[in-house]
């Protein structure tokens, strides 16, 4: 990602909203919405990894699924390549599917327990190609090689594998149709520590090998730090901060990002004992009834009166860094101060203010 070649936008999300209606009362009238995703805009560039972090219930998984239109969007657009997939007909969507794939969280649940590994990996091929059985098998073997699975396991059932191996099967399936864009929905959350690294390394290798673009959804900030080029921090259906990796981890701007980072325990007693923790009070409000104004205002240690009134927009406050906070004002020298290679275009891309 850090090469100088000007990157192309692969995914462009504009004002994405995913509301899940709440029906209540005698006649099941529509009385409200769970605002799982409430107006999200961001881009993903070809070949990069965008990390999407946040706590459970913040809507990050919903974003991933909405991007592949596994849910019908409430509003907004998701342009992948050059088509708005939110508006595609079911048939067009089907032909579009090979280019965008997904890796799931639970390696146990995401594999059909009644299918063999070969059948699972071949399923996308069955759906979208007209290969002969032999060609398919050959392709399956190639994919198994690519993800580091022994070909001899092709006829086994998922339950005979360990978690890490299952996740490899899931990755092989996602790769089968040579996708350009893969949504990794918490792919390592259910794995053991020693296995997480294996999977992350595999994902990185594959990215390099196939020129993949990832949306890497995770609650594990340290892993995201490792794999992502840019990171979006979500809170209660909105993006709190979207920044390139290094500046974010070195100097988080949004109070929530600060708290989040400070809460991650560090596996080093020396550093850990020296760190100043920001302990947030209370719980995340319900997405069906988010607070007025800034959605973080109920827990924000730095809250000021305006936060309870006005919803802050996601604005670029530093070159390439977008923050939705009343406390973080754009630097005056933003335009001039852009130094980083990547930051440059990111600024240009994201610079359009939106309502």
């Amino acid at each position, binding site marked *: 990602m850090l090469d100088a070649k000007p990157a192309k936008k692969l995914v462009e999300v504009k004002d994405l909203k995913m509301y899940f209606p709440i029906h209540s009362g005698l006649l099941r009238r529509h009385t409200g919405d769970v605002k799982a995703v409430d107006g999200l805009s961001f881009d993903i560039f070809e070949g990069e990894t965008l990390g999407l972090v946040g706590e459970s219930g913040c809507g990050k998984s919903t974003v991933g699924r909405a991007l592949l239109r596994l849910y019908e969007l409430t509003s907004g657009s998701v342009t992948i390549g050059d088509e708005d997939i939110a508006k595609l007909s079911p048939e067009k969507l089907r032909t579009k599917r090979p280019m965008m794939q997904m890796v799931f969280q639970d390696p146990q649940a995401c594999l059909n327990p009644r299918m063999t590994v070969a059948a699972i990996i071949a399923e996308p091929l069955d759906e979208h190609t007209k290969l002969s059985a032999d060609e398919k098998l050959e392709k399956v073997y190639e994919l198994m090689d690519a993800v580091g699975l022994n070909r001899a396991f092709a006829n086994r059932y998922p339950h005979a594998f360990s978690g890490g191996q299952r996740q490899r099967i899931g990755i092989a399936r996602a790769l089968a149709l040579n996708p350009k864009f893969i949504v990794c929905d918490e792919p390592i959350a259910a794995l053991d520590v020693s296995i997480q690294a294996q999977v992350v390394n595999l994902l990185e290798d594959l990215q390099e090998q196939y020129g993949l673009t990832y949306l890497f959804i995770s609650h594990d900030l340290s892993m995201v730090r490792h794999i992502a080029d840019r990171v979006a921090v979500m809170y209660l259906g909105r993006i709190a901060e979207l920044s390139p990796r290094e500046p974010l981890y070195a100097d988080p701007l949004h109070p929530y990002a600060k708290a989040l980072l400070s809460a991650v325990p*560090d*596996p080093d007693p020396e550093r850990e004992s020296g760190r100043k923790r920001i302990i947030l009070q209370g719980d995340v409000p319900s997405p069906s009834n988010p607070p007025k104004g800034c959605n973080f205002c109920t827990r924000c240690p730095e809250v000021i009166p305006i936060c309870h009134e006005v919803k802050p927009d996601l604005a670029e406050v530093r070159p390439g860094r977008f923050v939705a906070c009343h406390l973080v004002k754009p630097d005056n020298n933003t335009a001039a101060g852009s130094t980083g290679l990547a930051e440059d275009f990111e600024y240009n891309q994201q610079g359009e203010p939106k309502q």
Partner: protein
Amino acid sequence: MPDGAKPVLDVRGLQTVFRTRAGDVHAVNSVSFHLEPGELLGVVGESGSGKSVTMMSLIGLLPMPPAEVLAGEVMLGDVDILKVTPDQLRDIRGRRIGFVFQDPMTSLNPVYNIGNQVAEPLRRHMGMNKSQARARAIELLELVGIPDAERRLADYPHQFSGGMRQRVMIAIALACDPEVLIADEPTTALDVTIQAQIIELVKELRTKLGMAIVWITHDLGVIAGIADRVLVMYGGQVVEQAPVKELFANPQHPYTRALLKTIPSVTGQRETRLRVIEGQPPIMGAAPVACPFMPRCAHAFSRCGAENPQRRAIGAGRVGYGHDVACHWDAKTGGPADA
């Protein structure tokens, strides 16, 4: 911590096996450790390393059958709790040893209100009547930081958030002022900000109440921040034991060393590529003859396959106190350790 102070809990040679249709699974193999008064002992290991089973079996919470404790003694003060009658054991559980489990969503009974569940151990062990138990329950909930505790007594678990539920679990575990609190991955199911809250809470309660704590986790980060001493488990046995700073600064076992390297951090240097421990965690089966980590160990040599290493002390002190490791390989010399 003075070496040799009388431990509140002393576990020696604990061995637990699951009798399954596919054969016996030796889940815990000769695990020994002790817990000193007021100490927080961290137990780390991946899933399947036997850390939870160890704690469950010493207090008789495993379903038996299929589980069976083959050998060992567990001294709680002067009592070997593996040898007491079930009734005596029940008098100990909840009274002298408190338990906090991983998943606060499922660990509370969904059909009884919180007040009822907090009061249960009080009425069972402390002989309190209804109103006494209720008053104490309010105190306890306030202690664990549940706002508006009196009103919330009548609420049901599903009306609490995950963090609040875990606070309730802690209140239940602490209800009878136990000498030992065993916390089995208490923050794993929680978000990081909530995890931070709970860790703060436990630290605070520890200074306030002074009980000894066993904290089971797979997260070395959590251990680094909270534990006094650490037990590293792998393949159903203790592979390394050391005070926390010593362990992180000077890990001895190849597994500990590799593990520490695989974990990325939000601070410090970012590695361009993660280190990995190749291979898969061991499958528990028959009682091990070889070192369980041998198939994944970069330093393995012939002896590792022939003999399961005993724990040996590093530096001064005896095994179980100070720093010890169960490995044939010597990290200092990079060669076989002397037997």
